Structure formats: structure tokens, C-alpha cells
């Protein structure tokens, strides 16, 4: 048993930290307020290799392990959770999904550009009436012999308008239920793809979330991922890995709020001494530090299991549930520690509090994580 990170993992963490402070911190408040997509920041993240960290180097990726990815996700999320969700979707859903289950042709065609961040991808599962209940897909892909004809609407799609490649889950045979679901690689340039307006969100406001409409979109047969009927399993397996990324994002949001609170509590004076010297504040920080350490250990355990081909779905769900719930609690406490200053934008913690909320919702709500975990413990 060894809790020490390797020197390479520490270097990756420190590089992500330096990058986030140098490149993502400037303008983060304005991007949030104005819903500005972090175009130049994402380009730089691509150049730094953050957009395809775990992809095999032969496809232009970093060839890093999942633990390294978690460390980088945490550091990026401390500063800008909008950038980190774009990174998470591209890495752990789109790149991982194609690399794990795609054909050689699909990998060669799409991974080099996705992994280098030259283009970004999106994962299209949710629908207006299919969120947690992912089996009730209304989007259809009709088998036309030499191609599929895709019709339907997807909702809450991260990177909706900025992605060039979409992984789309659709029903090909309604009779077969979830075994009649398939996943397809759809390019934005295909005829019949329409992007909806950007959502005006509570948090992660500078990431672009849209709906996407598919109207008689011709999808070549070779763009189907896996065997016929593999789509639902593909979506579930991909989300299992995605959860580790979102857990690390929630962890980063919490850790970012904690670090700001610790710094503030050492500087701010009340009743003649620094507020950290008041037990009421010191105990809040002690709880935060403990919870962040627990969350980090869960994330790293899930990543370690994934890296060692051990089933990580239960730990991944525990990590996501725990980190998301704690992110919400810790960021709320961070605003409390900052008092009136915490309630205004320039102190960052109110943004982190708004950003934390989505981690309890997307890539499986906290309630869905509890279903997953309880299925394991009831086995």
C-alpha cells in the first residue's frame, strides 16, 4: 500500500495548477458573467495536452493514467469549472468512448484531432423526456440498408455548439427496448444537424450547453459504434468512466473554495484577531479539509481501479456522489466564511457555489449514484 503519488503524477498536477493560475484565472469572472465560451483557453488546453490526456500517444494523446487525469481535473476545476467540464466531456466520454469501443478506422479518423483539442466532441444522451431514465430514448435511427436515418432532439448537451463531433445515442429498434439502442458518431457538418440556442445557466455559465436537433440526418453505417444493439451498454460504460472525471471536477470546485477560504480566514480580522483563530471558523475549515481528503482518496481509488482493470463502477459512483454533495456543502460554507465578501463576484466563492450544483445533477444525479451503489451492496 502506498499513498505517495509518482514524481510524474506530481509534475502533471503542478503543471495543471500553474496552467490554471496563469491561463484560466485571468477573466474567469467575466467569462462566467457574460456566458463567454473560453475559446482561446480551450485552444491552449489542447496545446498543453489536457484534452486527450489518457488517449494512446499513437493517436496524439498523452498516454497518461486515470490518476493523472484526476489530478489535472482537480487543479483545472479549482480555477474554472466551465473549462473543466469541457475537458471532462472531451476526455472521458468522447475520446475514451471512441478509443475503447471504436473501430480502427473511427479511431484513426477522429482521435488525433479530438485528443489534441483541435476539435472538441460532445456526448448526446439526454433528451427532453429522457434524463436519468436513459432507456426511454425518443431519438430514432432507422436502418436504411447502407446508412441510418437519424431523427430526434437531444437536450443539455455540453459543448453543443462548439463541438465538431457528436456521439449520439438513438433507438434503432423500439421492440428490443434498451437492446435496440445504438451509438453513432455524427459530424456537425452532416445535413440536418441543427444547434439550439445556448442555455442561460445557474453555473458553469461559460461552457456552452444547447439542445441539438437531428432531422433526417444520413449517418453512414461505419459510424455506428460497436455491434448492433450495443448503444445502451456503450452509454452506461462511458458514463461510468465519466463519473470519475465529474467527481474530480466536484473535488476541484470544493478544494478551490477551501483554499480561498483558508487564505481569507488567515487575513480577515474580527474581534481583534484573524477569523481562523475563532473556533467557529477553524472548525468549518477542519471539516472542509477532512471531506476534501476523503473525496480525493475516493477519486484516486476509482482511477487506480480503472488503471488496473478492476471494476470501478461502484467506487466511481461513490466518488461522484460524495464529491458532488461535499462540493455543494463546502462551497456554501466558503461563502459563509467570506461573509458579505463571499456574496459578491470578485471573491470567486459564489461562482464556485453556483458551479457546484451541476455536479449533483449531470452524468448521473446523486440519486442515480445511490441506486448504483445500493445495487452493489444489495448483491
Amino acid at each position, binding site marked *: 500500500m502506498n499513498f505517495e503519488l509518482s514524481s510524474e503524477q506530481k509534475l502533471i498536477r503542478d503543471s495543471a495548477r500553474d496552467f490554471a493560475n496563469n491561463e484560466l484565472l485571468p477573466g474567469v469572472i467575466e467569462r462566467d458573467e457574460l456566458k463567454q465560451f473560453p475559446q482561446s483557453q480551450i485552444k491552449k488546453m489542447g496545446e498543453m495536452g489536457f484534452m486527450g*490526456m489518457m488517449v494512446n500517444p499513437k493517436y496524439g494523446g498523452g498516454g497518461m493514467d486515470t490518476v493523472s487525469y484526476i489530478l489535472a481535473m482537480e487543479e483545472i476545476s479549482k480555477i474554472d469549472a466551465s473549462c473543466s467540464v469541457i475537458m471532462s466531456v472531451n476526455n472521458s466520454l468522447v475520446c475514451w468512448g471512441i478509443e475503447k469501443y471504436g473501430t480502427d478506422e473511427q479511431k484513426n479518423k477522429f482521435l488525433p484531432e479530438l485528443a489534441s483539442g483541435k476539435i472538441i466532441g460532445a456526448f448526446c444522451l439526454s433528451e427532453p423526456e429522457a434524463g436519468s431514465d436513459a432507456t426511454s430514448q425518443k431519438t430514432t435511427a432507422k436502418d436504411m440498408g447502407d446508412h441510418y436515418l437519424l431523427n430526434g432532439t437531444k437536450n443539455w448537451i455540453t459543448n453543443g455548439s462548439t463541438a465538431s463531433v457528436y456521439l449520439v445515442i438513438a433507438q434503432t429498434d423500439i421492440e428490443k427496448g434498451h437492446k435496440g439502442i445504438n451509438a453513432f458518431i455524427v459530424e456537425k457538418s452532416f445535413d440536418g444537424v441543427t444547434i439550439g440556442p445556448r442555455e442561460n445557466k445557474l453555473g458553469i455559465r461559460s461552457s456552452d450547453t444547447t439542445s441539438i436537433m437531428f432531422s433526417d440526418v444520413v449517418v453512414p453505417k461505419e459510424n455506428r459504434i460497436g455491434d448492433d444493439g450495443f448503444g445502451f451498454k456503450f452509454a452506461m460504460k462511458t458514463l461510468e468512466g465519466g463519473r470519475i472525471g465529474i467527481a474530480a471536477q466536484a473535488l476541484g470546485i470544493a478544494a478551490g473554495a477551501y483554499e480561498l477560504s483558508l487564505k481569507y480566514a488567515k487575513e480577515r480580522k474580527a474581534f481583534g484577531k484573524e477569523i481562523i483563530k475563532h473556533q467557529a471558523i477553524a472548525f468549518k475549515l477542519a471539516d472542509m479539509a477532512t471531506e476534501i481528503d476523503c473525496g480525493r482518496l475516493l477519486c484516486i481509488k476509482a482511477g487506480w481501479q480503472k488503471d488496473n482493470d478492476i471494476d470501478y463502477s461502484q467506487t466511481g459512483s461513490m466518488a461522484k456522489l460524495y464529491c458532488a454533495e461535499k462540493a455543494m456543502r463546502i462551497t456554501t460554507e466558503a461563502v459563509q466564511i467570506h461573509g458579505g465578501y463571499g456574496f459578491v463576484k470578485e471573491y470567486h466563492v459564489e461562482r464556485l457555489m453556483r458551479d457546484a450544483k451541476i455536479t449533483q445533477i449531470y452524468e448521473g444525479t446523486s440519486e442515480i449514484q445511490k441506486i448504483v451503489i445500493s445495487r452493489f451492496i444489495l448483491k
Partner: protein
Amino acid sequence: MNILVCISCVPDTTSKINFTQNKKKLDEEGITFIINPYDEFCLTKAIFMKESSGANVTVISVGDSKSESVLRKALAIGADNAVRINADSDSSKSVANLIADYCSKNKFDIIFCGRESIDFNGGQVPGFIAAKLNLPFINSCVGLDYTDDKINAKREIDSGHEMCECSLPAVVAGQKGLVEEKDLKIPSMRGIMTARTKPLEILDPESTYNNNIEILELSKPSERSDCKIISEDNVGELVQLLHKEAKVI
């Protein structure tokens, strides 16, 4: 062109400094070590030279295994190979002699060192290296142009700048200005991955060198007291405080 960048492994600037019980050494417990910032300016300049004209960049550090992590970072930033001389780095003279020994066996056109290290601030290593190798030495370098056989350097001096030219090989002690802080490189994921396969050679010292100086005790500077602001029309109070409290007049 072959460039050697000498790297000192120093405590992070935000570290809380404590000493071992006998007060003769730094207590390394909980300390993060980084590339000495002055050395990092030199390393970045060397990488720029590599990118513009294909120089080969070697990084060298004298010290124990903890300096390997900073050497790996230097490789990830773009250095081609790294050398660690497995010896105590407490004495400037010893460090300089060991590096000079390495240089006498391996040909380098420019030997870069940071002007000083931010831990002990001796500022002696580059001068010692130049003296031992009998090479020209440019100290406090804030700008550098080069051709195959000479360099034009800009030095910071008390009253301004000094421009000078010297033949190669030469020892250059650099500082901010050689490159700017914004130019400093953060290792990319590809750089970190590539660094895995770059050589990091560990050499045992062939000779031992003695500084003839013994550290008797290390101590921290006294804590700064709060700043007092006295209004400009209250000179009397200022004089009183300088005399009675600060005891400087």
C-alpha cells in the same frame, strides 16, 4: 551548439522554513522543491535557443535523489538529457568543482547558471566554474544574442546596463531579463510523456572538494512588525518612534 544548464534544487518560495535540531541544516520535512528561479530563466533561454537553432540542451544538478524531480521537469520542458551528480550540495565550491569536472570531459559551448540560488544565495557557483575551466564569465546577464563562436551579452550593472562580447565557450550567469517571467514554460502533457524516455544519468563524484567553511548555525530573520503610518504633519511623532522604538536615531 551544446548548452549546459546548471540547476539547483531549492525550496518552493512559499515554503515554511525550519531547521534541523542542531540548526545546521534545512529541515526538509514537508518542503516542496523547485527549479531555482534564476536557473529557470536560463533553462528557458536555452530551450528558446534549441527551438530557433537546434541546440542540444543538457541539464545538470549536484545533489541527492530529490533533485531528480526537478531534472525531470527540465526534461519535460524540453531539455534533451539530464545528469545528476550524486554528492552533497551544501558547498558552492564543491558543486562548482564537480560541474567543472563534468564539463572538462564533455564539450559545451555555453554553460548557463542562475546568478544565485534562492536558498543560500551564495552566487559563487558560476564564477567558480569559469575560474576552474579558465573560461570567460558573464555575470548578471539580462540579454543574450549569439553566433556559432561568440555571444553578445547585456549585463545588469549598478548604474544601468553593460554590453559585452565574448568568445565561446563561456559561462553565463543569468537572471530575469534573459527571458521574462511570462516566457517561462509549463511542461505540457506531451513533454512530460516524452521526458519518460529521455536519459537521466546519475554519476558518482570522482573527487571530493572541501569548502573549508563550516556552518555553525542557521537562524530565521526576525519577524517584521506591523507597519505604522504617520501623517506627514506629525514629524515629532516620527522622530520619537525612530528614536525610542526603532532605536535607529
